[in-house]
């Protein structure tokens, strides 16, 4: 009798464990840039996906670059399932074997019926990465303190618009903006930067405002500099400025002329666990509706054409229409330059050294 009871207990315990194991939900870690951007992803992608599939998704912050991914992949101990990277990092990491390849055929069609290949903007899906947003570096100023800022040349004109300028500490994208301020049309900027004379021209233009520049490093600094009155105009990431305007009511204005835009993409570090769930999340978060939803939290443009029709208003302000605040909106896209990742992959280290040497003089 005792033996029967013992056997029954053991069997039920084992089967309970098996059942519990089989319905155990997977947990994946998605890594992104923090602040308002991560919040938009959590609201538009993480929460709906977790609710729909029952899996858990954890959000971590990082400050860009491939160092952590490289360290994890080299050590063979990958804890990050998904990373949101810039296009230059996506291409570089793929070339150097840091990412898993993603088969583009798994991506769903757009909500308007177009195939994924047609729906995604060109260049936003690569061998190892699937794009999610378009973001841009723009010039921002305090609308209540000045007006009439129309072109990139105005940013470099301290006589007409006195006051300090904020620039990101580094050659990118200051060199492009300097050339555009000198009157170089966007399509010739990188051709010019591929020559020594062009680079010297860019540095000479930067020299003209050098004494009035406050150099910033973190994306959160430019809105703070504007709010403190420390600078009259500054370059910034457009989503951060929009966030200051919409969520904190600041009177900032964006000048879209000479914007330098770039993509962010999802990548999977090589050797990451839970591939099936991670790919499922990528399919969900780069779908038409999810991309349109993130646009209601922050003013970054979706990479799917079908999402444009679904972009509505800011999540808690129905009369704030998001469409006009996207980098890709037609009225903002007049003189826009796409960041050339190939040029920067080749020349970033050297130009960075030159920039630091120039700054130190």
């Amino acid at each position: 009798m005792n033996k029967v009871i013992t056997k029954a207990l053991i069997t039920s315990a084992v089967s309970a464990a098996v059942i519990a194991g089989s319905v155990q939900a997977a947990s994946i870690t998605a890594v992104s840039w923090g602040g308002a951007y991560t919040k938009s992803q959590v609201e538009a992608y993480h929460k709906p996906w977790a609710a729909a599939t029952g899996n858990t998704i954890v959000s971590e912050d990082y400050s860009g670059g491939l160092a952590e991914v490289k360290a994890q992949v080299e050590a063979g101990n990958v804890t990050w399932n998904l990373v949101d990277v810039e296009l230059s990092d996506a291409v570089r990491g793929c070339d150097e074997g840091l990412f898993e390849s993603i088969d583009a055929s798994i991506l769903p069609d757009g909500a308007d019926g177009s195939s994924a290949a047609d729906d995604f903007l060109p260049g936003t899906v690569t061998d190892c990465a699937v794009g999610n947003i378009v973001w841009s570096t723009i010039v921002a100023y305090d609308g209540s303190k000045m007006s009439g800022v129309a072109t990139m040349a105005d940013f470099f004109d301290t006589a007409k618009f006195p006051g300090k300028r904020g620039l990101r500490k580094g050659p990118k994208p200051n060199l492009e903006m300097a050339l555009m301020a000198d009157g170089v049309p966007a399509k010739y900027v990188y051709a010019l930067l591929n020559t020594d004379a062009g680079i010297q021209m860019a540095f000479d233009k930067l020299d003209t405002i050098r004494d009035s520049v406050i150099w910033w490093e973190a994306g959160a600094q430019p809105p703070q500099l504007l709010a403190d009155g420390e600078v009259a105009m500054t370059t910034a990431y457009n989503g951060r400025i929009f966030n200051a305007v919409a969520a904190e009511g600041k009177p900032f204005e964006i000048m879209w002329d000479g914007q330098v835009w770039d993509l962010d993409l999802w990548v999977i570090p090589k050797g990451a666990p839970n591939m099936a769930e991670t790919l499922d999340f990528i399919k969900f978060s780069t779908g038409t509706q999810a991309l349109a939803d993130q646009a209601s939290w922050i003013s970054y443009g979706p990479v799917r054409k079908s999402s444009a029709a679904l972009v509505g208003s800011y999540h808690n302000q129905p009369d704030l229409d998001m469409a006009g605040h996207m980098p890709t909106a037609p009225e903002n896209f007049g003189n826009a330059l796409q960041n050339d990742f190939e040029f920067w992959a080749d020349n970033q280290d050297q130009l960075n050294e030159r920039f630091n040497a120039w700054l130190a003089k």
Partner: protein
Amino acid sequence: MSTTKELIEQDGISLKDKLAKATKVQKRRALLLTMPLVIFLLVSFVMPIGQMLWRSVHNPTVSNVIPNFAIAIQQWDGNALPSESVFEVFVKDLVTAKKNREIGKTVGNLATRINYDIPGSRSLFTSTARKAKKLKAPFKESLLKLNKKWANPTLWLSLKRNSKDLTPAFYLAAMDLKYDERGNIVKADDLYQIYMSNFIKTIKLSAIITAICILLAYPIAYVLSVLPLRQSNLLMICVLLPFWTSLLVRTTAWIAILQTQGVVNDILVFLGFLSDDGRVQMIYNQTGTIIAMVHILLPFMVLPLYSVMKTISPTYMKAALSMGARKSYALRKIYLPLTIPGLGAGTLLVFILAIGYYITPALVGGEDGLLISNLIAYHIQKSLNWSLGAALGAILLVTVLVLYWLYNKLIGIDNLKFG
């Protein structure tokens, strides 16, 4: 001549032998007790740093990605371009490497490595590897037709140099030197001279910060040591309070206080010392860096000084004064030498910490806020040139060791007292 008779115990063994045996047991016990610490230091300190230092000379990329070529290119004498057979091996190796997606063995790794030597060559390698399968014999001709950048002998010289597993190239780059077209070592272009001047700037700035910390900390520590216990405890809490706040919060607070529209400038304008247009720029320059870093590092100077000063008996100063010395003379000749251990400890601590700081200078230093640790962090985090970062780190390590040796000569390590 006196002879010492050996003492023999009752059981026949000499006292000397017994003593030796007893101390051996003691020594072994002591060794076993410290073994965990030694192992911990080895695993968490010596090994990782050793690995990083190894990275600064280890250069296996070319021989990992295109191994047959690495062997074949050694036969080339370095004049004009390599022979057709070397080109053939190169193309065949590229085709094989293109299929490899293992980290460290991809064409991308090779492209990045050569790009450090010859900027702009990264896209050359990646685009050629994509088309390498279609190339046919004669390979030299077809490769040069594909892209005339392959006719650059400097590129092939660089490939030949980097086919060796050990290289001084990263240390050369860290010292602002480079290889020219013929493979000789020359000074880098004036436009790119950054590292050596930055080292010197970092050391100078750290020395200034240490000096200011000494000047400020000495009176504070002295007051703390002579006050009665209750008041000194209260003041000690004030000294320790910054430790309990986050570093970034303290740095941001300084930005709010020192900026041109900030608290200090507003007060000075209000009191009439400055006009509204003549506000002083105290942040985003070297002044801001010095102020913020002195604030953060001051407790590290105060605490060792305080603990040493507390142990100095007041009778020494009283004795000196009673023998007719002036107060300043007694301070200089009696009190100061007694505090040297604490001063030495504090100086060492503050200086070494100051050399390694990069977050604070990056946030408040503006144009001037680029120190050597920023550059090392850039290479580790952004450019992923870990070898160059390791080389810079190794030079920094050697610098600090040299300064430490100097300090030992002047003050003596045995004179160190942290409290």
